[in-house]
């Protein structure tokens, strides 16, 4: 079955420093991969997605992610973190249920804390 692992439960980064959040997936075929962000008290918002083509994808708010098939990874990066980036970040992979329904399988999330 498809699964997503986010090995870091929480990460603290200084404002202005670079950020990388790790995501590893388990999927037999070419995966459809997503990163969502959840700010406190809010629902999830899509940052970016990878379906095919260029393995480096650009998203909103200055985020990017790189798909590496050999490592089964889809790490999220940002060159300079802002205090407003403090949130929880979820990686997800597109999967198909036993009934043929296309759904998302989420990781457990990484909470990003930004220090002054």
């Amino acid at each position, binding site marked *: 079955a498809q699964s*997503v692992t986010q090995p870091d439960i929480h990460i603290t980064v200084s404002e202005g420093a670079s950020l990388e959040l790790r995501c590893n997936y388990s999927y037999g075929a070419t995966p459809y991969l997503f990163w969502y962000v959840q700010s406190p008290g809010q*629902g*999830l*918002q*899509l940052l970016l997605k990878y379906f095919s083509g260029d393995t480096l994808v650009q998203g909103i708010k200055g985020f990017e992610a790189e798909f590496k098939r050999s490592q089964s990874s889809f790490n999220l990066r940002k060159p300079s973190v802002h205090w407003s980036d403090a949130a929880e970040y979820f990686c997800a992979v597109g999967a198909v249920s036993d009934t043929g329904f296309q*759904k998302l399988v989420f990781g*457990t999330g990484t909470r990003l804390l930004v220090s002054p």
Partner: protein
Amino acid sequence: EADIYQTPRYLVIGTGKKITLECSQTMGHDKMYWYQQDPGMELHLIHYSYGVNSTEKGDLSSESTVSRIRTEHFPLTLESARPSHTSQYLCASSEGQGWAEAFFGQGTRLTVV
């Protein structure tokens, strides 16, 4: 800006009560979903719908039920709430084809005492 709304945002209710969590979207999306979210855990899909009069149970077994009488409305009901139902419930919707972007509501945080 996502046009999907959940009410109430917070609910504290006693054991045994019947509750309905509301979810509405104005985007005309065919697919709608309910996820359960607990701290430190992945989001679990508990119900989904392809469209009107279509509802299915998701990966995580849930004692809740859902209905889809109108495209825009996808309420979740618990007939008899228990403390084990305490959680955050997130509603989402997406266009019908493929793995389209899912739009999420702000969630309902349910506490059963």
